[in-house]
């Protein structure tokens, strides 16, 4: 077990391992996504209150869940990099940031599109969407900070610190936005109420959530491989992979 984790830190080993992982996980993820989307779009029954527009839930919720989890993954990678100075963790953190940002963007856009037929407006400041928006800003901040630093080793450390600070704040932000929402909204209207979700809708949702986690893993590993190749472009294992030497 420990030797496995130790090997993960070796660039050529991780590159090969990642390549094999992507080779089978990518098709599996794509299949899961297709099956889940088909199920959610065309097989599951419509919602009692919202009709067919609720089907957006099958991309909105998985994207939101994985976007939030992704931030924690990014921060964890940053923490490992800071504490144990493991370069691979740096690369994982840098690879996860844009993926998380895009997923948050998907959650926001699909949330807005979902809002139009449901409540009549393209944007509603309800607690969940607002928290998602702030998560988006947190991601953008990490990406922007990395780009701004000239010394990329220092950049990785700075982003690690920033993501850790963000991680501590996320529960506080989510809770405060929740309370903000209940303080200001008129008592009668509730935009996103908790409603019991039927089993026939729950299964495709869970499937899509699993698919999105797979998607996250695949794209992050793919990004890491790209970064590893560039970072070690003068080493012999990269030259071998490129086809000469």
């Amino acid at each position, binding site marked *: 077990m420990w030797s496995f984790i130790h090997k993960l830190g070796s660039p050529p080993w991780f590159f090969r391992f990642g390549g094999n992982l992507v080779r089978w996980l990518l098709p599996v993820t794509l299949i899961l996504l297709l099956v889940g989307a088909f199920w959610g779009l065309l097989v599951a029954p419509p919602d009692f209150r919202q009709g067919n527009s609720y089907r957006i839930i099958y991309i909105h919720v998985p994207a939101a869940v994985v976007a939030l989890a992704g931030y924690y993954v990014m921060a964890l990678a940053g923490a490992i990099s800071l504490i144990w100075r493991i370069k691979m963790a740096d690369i994982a953190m840098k690879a996860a940031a844009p993926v998380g940002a895009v997923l948050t963007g998907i959650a926001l856009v699909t949330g807005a599109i979902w809002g139009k037929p449901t409540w009549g407006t393209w944007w509603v400041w309800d607690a969940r969407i607002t928290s998602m928006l702030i998560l988006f800003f947190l991601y953008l901040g*990490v990406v922007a900070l990395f780009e701004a630093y000239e010394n990329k*080793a*220092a950049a990785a450390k700075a982003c690690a610190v920033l993501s850790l600070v963000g991680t501590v704040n996320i529960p*506080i*932000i989510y809770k405060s936005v929740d309370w903000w929402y209940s*303080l200001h909204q008129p008592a009668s209207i509730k935009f996103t109420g908790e409603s019991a979700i039927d089993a026939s809708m729950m299964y495709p949702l869970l499937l899509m959530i699993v698919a999105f986690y797979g998607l996250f893993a695949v794209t992050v590993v793919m990004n890491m491989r790209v970064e590893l190749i560039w970072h070690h472009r003068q080493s012999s294992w990269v030259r071998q992979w490129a086809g000469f030497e």
Partner: protein
Amino acid sequence: MPAADQAALSLSAAFFRQFLRHGKTLAASPSDLLNPLLFFFMVVTLFPLGLGPDPERLSQMAPGILWVVALLASLMVSGKLFASDFEDGSLEQLCLAPHPLAILALAEVFAHWLGTGFLLALVSPLFAVMVGLPTQALPVLVVSLLLGSLCLTLIGAVGSALTVSIRRGGLLLSLIIIPLHVPVLIFGSSAVVEATRDGNVASWLALLAALALASLALAPLAIGAALRISLDNG
């Protein structure tokens, strides 16, 4: 004197020395103290100009307006916090000192807060009447801004420490810090809103106080780490 006592004494002595040094620099240039207040004054004026002078509507929006402008003012001054130290090399001296960088940085942040957020909180009633905040809410405004500006200054200091080595890092600072400021804004403005409604102010202020304590405990660690990282970059 036992060695531990001696070390502890030096630490607080170092803390006060850093605090006074930074405080004197601030006090030496009155414009540095006055400008944030002027900024606050002018930007508050923009809101009636943008929204219309209707006193009813203004007073409804007053808590939010005052708090947002206070937040913006805090962002503006955060950028300057470690900048001069970074440029003249005294930041490196600070890192080499035998005392924990986190504590020395905290001394600077504290001095900075007294010259900016603290002052702002005290003069806020003057601007509050301009936007029609009900008088009963004024004390809560001041208290919320006192606690809140401390949080904002501490969080802003983390951002400043992270971006001090970046040219024109002011905008980037705002980008990375604004999401972290959201809870402070929510708790602070909600306290004032509740004060206008004779509602439950205490819980919001308690939350602000909790944030302030947490920031006091945790921010210095992040600031210390970030300052060292910035020195590596520039």
